[in-house]
């Protein structure tokens, strides 16, 4: 029985540069790209570096670029890729490469530290907090994030324009989940505009296209935050209204 094989073209190198190397891997039922990388490690070259952990699309470690598209290696099945040409596997290009498919995503953690944490309002008389499901729905979507940073990787503001002051889609999602939280009383709107530079996002939606958790990043997190920024900073009528009734929940 002749074995079916695929050609894989893998980036090999570090932050100084590198080259693409081609490997043949045998195919099997249900195989994913991460399996192919493991096969290369096991049989052809055990110095090939890759970061992974769960192989179930939940730890967010194995992000890379497969045929040019930012994806999780463990969730990309080989039978969904065209096999007539070699499959390119590269690290996420927005972050510095440490070795081969592993890159240094620590810039993201620096951004994360700048976000003011959850600040709950005073508890009810019985010392607890309660809110209902309809309050939680919106925020729950954002909690699905596995921090794979594929959205940060694909965002052209970071990828092409290298705007290191821009928080990026992942952290706009986190900011949205805090800002829309029914119990949170911290006000982050000025920071969202001035420190996290939401205005740099031009809503071209690549983050939404690549998110493996299918979070509607642009429509449900970024655009609603942009609208809140408009109410606070660009809308004289809303300002007047807020002054008049002084009980607007955007300003809390």
């Amino acid at each position, binding site marked *: 029985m002749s074995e079916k094989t695929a050609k894989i073209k893998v980036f090999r190198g570090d932050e100084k540069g590198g080259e693409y190397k081609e490997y043949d891997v045998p195919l099997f039922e249900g195989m994913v790209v991460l399996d192919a990388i493991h096969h290369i490690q096991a049989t052809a070259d055990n110095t090939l570096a890759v970061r992974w952990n769960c192989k179930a699309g939940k730890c967010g470690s194995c992000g890379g670029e497969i045929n040019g598209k930012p994806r999780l290696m463990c969730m990309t099945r080989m039978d969904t890729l065209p096999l007539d040409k070699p499959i390119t596997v590269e690290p996420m290009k927005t972050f510095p490469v440490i070795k081969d498919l592993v*890159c240094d995503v620590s810039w993201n953690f620096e951004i994360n530290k700048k976000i003011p944490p959850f600040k709950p309002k005073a508890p009810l008389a019985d010392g607890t907090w309660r809110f209902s499901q309809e*309050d939680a729905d919106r925020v729950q979507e954002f909690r699905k994030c596995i921090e794979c940073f594929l959205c940060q990787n694909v965002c052209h503001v970071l990828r092409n324009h290298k705007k290191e002051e821009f928080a990026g889609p992942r952290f706009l999602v986190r900011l949205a989940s805090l800002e829309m939280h029914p119990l949170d009383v911290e006000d982050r709107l000025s920071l969202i505009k001035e420190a996290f530079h939401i205005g740099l996002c*031009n809503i071209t939606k690549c983050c939404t296209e690549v998110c493996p958790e299918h979070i509607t990043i642009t429509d449900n997190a970024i655009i609603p935050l942009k609208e809140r920024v408009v109410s606070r900073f660009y809308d004289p009528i809303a300002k007047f209204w807020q002054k008049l009734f002084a009980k607007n929940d955007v300003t809390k």
Partner: protein
Amino acid sequence: MARLAPNTMFKSGLGTTQRKDNWWLQPVLVVFGLGSFGIYSTWAALQGNHYAFGPYLSPFYSPLFIFDWWHWSPALLILWAPLGFRATCYYYRKAYYRAFFADPPACAVGELAEHRYSGETKFPFILQNIHRFFFYLAAIFIFILSYDAYEAFWFDGHFGIGVGSLVLTANALFLGLYTFSCHSFRHLIGGKRDCFSNCSLAKAQYKTWSIVSILNQRHMLWAWISLCTVGFADVYIRLCAMGIIHDIRII
């Protein structure tokens, strides 16, 4: 301090990518779609004639203002409002930033090397922030165009249905879906709240926000369908008015 990778590691520049799919197809279709609508609507708006036939009024010319002191096409008095609405629409922004500005042309596809970029933080794009004011105007237009659609069923005081009546009705319907699925509307109608359960007004806002959210998921679809219906309505009425085609009366 941790950093992003410099642009020199991998090949960059306009159109550079390892993608093997037809990523260029979508921007090409958008350029074709918006380009042809732009050319036709500019031409039609400048004509200043053939915009009405029987009880039908072209949406490019509604509401119709005729003043002695205005010597150009009456369309120019009103079209800036729907134009501004679409130009600042969150969906169209995505479409033209990608297709016309290649910023980015498609996801994970390179841009013009090293061009300056300030997103929507500087003039002119900072003006996108006034989208909600165009929404208020567009909402008024929906009522006017719905009235036009109603009028299109009355032929010399008698009720009737012509193909044009249906065209104008479909146009008002799809423009309504487009307008009321707007992201700004979704914010104003309830999305601005953090709490949806603490009082009766919040419950009502939660309902309206939920409905608008459902429409909003198809915002791009409504944008394109309504663009087609509004263009087609003008073409249809223009051709009838020029005597090139005959409006078929159903009733």
